């Protein structure tokens, strides 16, 4: 497969904080590559270095074979970028902003087709300040596509959106991949990474701690399913670990997650234990392991605290 983005040993520090600490990865043609991690993990910094709008302290970045440090303008002509918070020119209309951005590039896609693609036809003459959050986000995706880029960068594209708007953006991203473009996306939403990404890099404290297909990551770390519940009194991890079928235990703020390869046995054993010791076991819930569990297992923390 053709490599579109090639990042090797990237480093970037702000004073004493190592925001990006020796990160390497590849993004291939036609794939959606996700960077998953909590806020402040270094996702945005990494992405902005690759886009050529931030300088790295060390490391090499090549986009479409072009060295970003040497020729950032050349790279910028071929990529599409959406930043985390973009409030655009409030007094220009959708069409006007699109035309303005199109004028920055030597070649541009059809503005009318893009407006149709992101479903803003009814709002084409609306001023940007009058757009809803979801519409603004779709506009900024359309702007990222205005130069018909080979690779699309989306920084937390669905952050703060309602479920309907989020699905619209996901469909849009999948459509773009269908056109053979690569998408590099950052997110702190598990379900987004799991549903959307062909490959995911889990990042924490400026380091990539795992990279693979979402299902592979889960399968690699869990043959078990997760049982979540709350307890009326605190129990030691050792006690829960001794329950039959349990392979791992994580306790956080009164919320317990145990991983089990034999869910029925474990659940009945847990209920017995509760009755025996005289405490309550509430909000019991069984689910398949997710990327969140992988993150939890690898870092001991949840992504969103």
């Amino acid at each position, binding site marked *: 497969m053709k490599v579109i983005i090639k990042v090797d040993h990237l480093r970037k520090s702000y004073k004493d904080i190592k925001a990006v600490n020796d990160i390497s990865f590849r993004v291939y043609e036609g794939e959606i590559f996700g960077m998953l991690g909590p806020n402040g993990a270094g996702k945005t910094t990494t992405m902005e270095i690759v886009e050529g709008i931030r300088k790295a302290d060390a490391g090499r970045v090549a986009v479409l074979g072009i060295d970003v440090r040497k020729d950032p303008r050349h790279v910028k002509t071929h990529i599409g970028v959406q*930043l985390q918070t*973009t*409030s655009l*020119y409030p007094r*220009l209309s959708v069409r006007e902003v699109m035309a303005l951005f199109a*004028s*920055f*590039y030597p070649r541009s896609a059809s503005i009318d087709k893009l407006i149709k693609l992101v479903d803003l036809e009814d709002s084409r003459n609306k001023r940007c300040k009058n757009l809803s959050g979801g519409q603004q986000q779709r506009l900024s995706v359309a702007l990222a596509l205005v130069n018909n880029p080979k690779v699309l960068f989306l920084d937390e594209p669905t952050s703060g959106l309602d479920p309907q708007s989020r699905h619209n953006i996901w469909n849009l991203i999948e459509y773009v991949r269908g056109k053979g473009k690569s998408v590099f996306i950052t997110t702190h939403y598990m379900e987004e990474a799991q549903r959307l990404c062909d490959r995911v890099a889990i990042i924490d404290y400026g380091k990539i701690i795992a990279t693979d297909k979402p299902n592979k990551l889960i399968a690699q770390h869990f043959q078990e399913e997760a049982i979540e519940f709350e307890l009326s009194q605190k129990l030691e991890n050792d006690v829960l670990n001794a329950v039959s079928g349990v392979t791992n235990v994580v306790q956080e703020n009164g919320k317990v997650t145990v991983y089990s390869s034999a869910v029925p046995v474990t659940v009945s054993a847990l209920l017995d234990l509760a009755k025996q010791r005289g405490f309550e076991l509430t909000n019991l819930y069984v689910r398949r392991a997710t990327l969140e569990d992988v993150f939890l297992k690898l870092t001991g923390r949840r992504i969103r605290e």
Partner: protein
Amino acid sequence: MKTFQVLLVANAKQFFRERAALFWTFIFPIFFILIFGAVFSGEDDIKFNVGLVLEDDSPIAQNFSAALEQIPAFELNLGERGVEMQALEDGDRRAVIVVNSGFGESITLGQVTNIDVYYDPTQTSSKQVLLPIIQRVTDNFDRALAGSTPLIQLSEQTLQSHDLRAIDYLVPGILAMSLMQLGLFAVAPIVVDRENKVLKRLGATPLRRSTMIMSTVVFNLIIAMMQTALIVIIARLVFHVPVLGNWFYLIGFIIIGTLTFLAMGYMLSAFAKNQQTLMPLIMFVQFPMMFLSGIFFPTEMMPGFMRPIMDAMPLTYLADSIRQIMVDSQPLHAQLFSNPHLLNLIVLGGWFIVCLVLAVRFFKWE
């Protein structure tokens, strides 16, 4: 080039769609001119009640009296010494000019002779405004006598350089002030764009920063020309304020002034983190210039200790040149260079370069 045009049009659309910007740029200066024009319309200019005591009845003394009468700023009262001095003490006269007997005779004989001027020293305007005018009349009178120029013509000369109505003085100042405001505030949208990450988003496109800055500069020059045209036209239609001088000079100074204050605006925005800190910073620069640059009244009327401040402000020099060109007023520091605009050009250019260097050095794009 296409990018530049599209940016320029986008700038214009954003500007003309914001009512506040339109108000401050076009309505506010006109408002100022109309208000001040109405205030001063009853009396064409500030009149000083001046007593004249003629104790000499020679033709020369008569001519001197006639010359004084030509000065529009003077409300001349001819009278006896005792009566006029009493009027001065009572505050009915700002000054009393006494032409002693033997005045004409002394001059005819080529002797130096004195004209006595009495005034109340507690009134600063008497000393700072009246005396220079009287001095000028006597100087011209002297010169005319020596060069045997007809006296009447001399009076007209005197008249020309002082026939400035308050509104004539004010309009060029308001124009200069509007250009200052335009330049200083032109950078505010860029600071907003920086805050909203629009600049960062633009940084992710191949758009060159130089193209961006150029489009802002050209756009503001166009607005400056529109402001100038509007102010000049309204002032002419309503108050008959002329443009006596060269139009190309006027346009030249409009451009230089706008560029200087744009550079100053960029400099201020380099030192401001966001819009909340930029606004007070602009005010801090703008208000002293508004009131200490001789926009509303001549700098001669200011107390002496403020002169160094006034002499440092770029607006003083821009207003001076525009005033010279439009209504043919006396240059501020005519004695320094043979061309009265040269000093103004040097000071404005100096400010432009200093502000530009600081702006380039400290401006942050994120």
